[in-house]
């Protein structure tokens, strides 16, 4: 009798547990972290509850899922190891050792114990299978360990646009110079299809009470580019006859600003929204964040004041309102911060100041609507995958290539927000120049 009762309890518990697991697995709104075999990387943990973003049901990770988010940046990076390069039978023996055509060969998720920088889960000498004889052709590489190819600041697996040999030779003369430079002016581009409109004034504000009575809000809007372009309260808060919303959200902005939300949704700030989850919050972050920011959620309005339409506060204040890591905290006393202060005061010319956005939301040339324009990349992480991505469009505006490469390879200097000179030296430029002598 006693054992029968135990069996019954055991059976019911088993069925109950199985049912709960099945329900949890099938329910996209459930907390499914119980199924995770290990923690996700810093780049994906934000969407850990959106399993379908990467996994096929009862299947593995879909290559298409990786490419859905990363293909465009790989193409823009002129990927040095594009899968198409290897898709030839002559590479069969190499691919049998390491099939580099699949992202997960090098980037296996849920394996924190073997995950290194850039989410790489192979041993650091992963270049060896194909390049172990490199020193035969390049005497400069003799004696170098294969685990330093991608970790020494000389090479990246995918993006070598600022590291390839001819680039180093062309721009490698000189020392650690810094000169007076400036970022190019931003070119605002909106997909505004309502035609030309007359500028609006405070008297034209069509907001209902109580917003209509908020003079500061109305005056900020009346002095903004939105009012000057004829964009009234209802265009954002009550688009196309919908009910008034105090918080219009990203879709209202995206109705005119196509490019910026696209970048935002691709980066760590917006990728939760893109995956159908609730917005990212500092509470979800792994980086140190200010305690008083934990309840904030990220959307366009988190950094931008849509009424004032002054992007300068978003360039530094918007970041430091949440970020509280060593690099961020060191900004205020950094040489870059001094240039930003000079630009804000009018002492420095436009573009001469270096804000957080200068490096992390960079102004990049992009072909938009048939013309090349300088637009702001709102994927704030794109320039850090790897950090040498920022050399061409950002660092070289004011610094020599030699200083840029050395500085970005010095973690301590990065933590100090570039206060001082690099303590590390990457020999790549010296090697490249020596081959041309």
């Amino acid at each position: 009798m006693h054992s029968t009762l135990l069996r019954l309890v055991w059976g019911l518990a088993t069925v109950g547990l199985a049912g709960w697991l099945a329900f949890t697995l099938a329910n996209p709104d459930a907390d499914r972290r119980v199924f995770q075999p290990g923690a996700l990387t810093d780049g994906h943990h934000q969407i850990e509850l959106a399993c379908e973003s990467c996994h096929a049901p009862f299947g593995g990770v879909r290559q298409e899922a990786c490419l859905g988010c990363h293909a465009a940046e790989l193409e823009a990076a002129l990927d040095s190891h594009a899968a198409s390069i290897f898709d030839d039978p002559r590479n069969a023996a190499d691919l049998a050792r390491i099939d580099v055509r699949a992202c997960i060969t090098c980037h296996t998720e849920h394996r924190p114990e073997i995950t290194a920088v850039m989410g790489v889960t192979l041993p650091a000498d992963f270049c060896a299978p194909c390049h172990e004889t490199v020193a035969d052709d390049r005497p400069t590489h003799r004696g170098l360990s294969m685990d330093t190819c991608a970790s020494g600041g000389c090479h990246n697996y995918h993006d070598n646009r600022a590291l390839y040999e001819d680039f180093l030779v062309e721009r490698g003369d000189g020392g650690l110079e810094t000169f007076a430079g400036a970022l190019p002016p931003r070119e605002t581009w909106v997909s505004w299809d309502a035609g030309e409109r007359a500028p609006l004034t405070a008297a034209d504000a069509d907001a209902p009470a109580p917003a209509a009575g908020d003079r500061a809000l109305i005056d900020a809007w009346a002095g903004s580019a939105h009012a000057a372009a004829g964009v009234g309260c209802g265009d954002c808060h009550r688009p196309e006859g919908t009910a008034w919303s105090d918080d219009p959200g990203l879709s209202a902005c995206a109705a005119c600003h196509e490019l910026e939300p696209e970048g935002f949704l691709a980066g760590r700030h917006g990728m939760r929204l893109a995956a159908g989850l609730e917005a990212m919050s500092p509470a979800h972050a792994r980086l140190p964040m200010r305690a008083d920011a934990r309840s904030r959620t990220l959307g366009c309005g988190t950094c931008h004041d849509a009424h004032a339409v002054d992007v300068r506060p978003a360039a530094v204040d918007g970041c430091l309102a949440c970020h509280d890591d060593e690099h961020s905290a060191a900004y205020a006393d950094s040489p870059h911060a001094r240039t930003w202060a000079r630009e804000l005061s009018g002492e420095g010319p436009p573009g001469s100041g270096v804000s957080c956005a200068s490096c992390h939301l960079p102004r990049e040339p992009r072909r938009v609507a048939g013309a090349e324009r300088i637009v702001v990349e709102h994927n704030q992480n794109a320039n850090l995958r790897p950090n040498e991505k920022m050399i061409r469009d950002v660092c070289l505006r004011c610094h020599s290539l030699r200083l840029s490469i050395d500085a970005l390879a010095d973690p301590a200097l990065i933590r100090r927000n570039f206060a001082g000179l690099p303590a590390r030296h990457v020999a790549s430029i010296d090697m490249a120049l020596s081959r041309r002598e």
Partner: protein
Amino acid sequence: MYGNVRDSSAAVDWAVMMMLLVGRHRLATAVLLVSVLVAGCGGGSAGGGEPGGISPQAMADALHTVIEADRTVYARHVVNRLQDQEQVIEASEHWQDDRTLPLPAQMFRMGAELAAERTDRFRYALLSKWPVNAQNAPKTEMEAAGLVAVAADPSQPFYGTESLGGVDYFTAVYADVAVAEACVNCHNAHPDSARDDFAVGDIMGGVVIRIPVG
């Protein structure tokens, strides 16, 4: 000797191949290909295909005719003319950065990769015993033997079969000739080139075409 590429999807394969080639190449070259394929399908191909089919050799020869024609046109009438003769625009390895023309070898490789994205019925590559990029040196025994053979007698393609990654391939190697000054000037001056004494008309490497068989 070689397995025929004559299966249930043969008609589709030819259509795919034709679309690929016609889409990228000059009409005249496509017409030439059509004639070769029609001859092959009729059983009279150079490779001795069975009636109603086309042999891998005939298919490889036809592909090479188009590839070589386009490669020659690009090297002579685009790169050599615009860079070396009229000096309008250069061709360079980092052509996106430099806003220049792609090098002929890059043009070749980009075409090969694009074709590979669209069909797995054939692959082609440009290889050399003296490559600028070490990855383009011969890797398989067939490639090594083929490059030696076509360098010794450029008029005769090298044919054979090999098994790579568990798949059997008919492999053909054709001589790649320096058709313009632009070819030899660039290869002779490149710091990664294994030779600096190429002359127009020299064999610089080989075009390798693989067709899965069996």
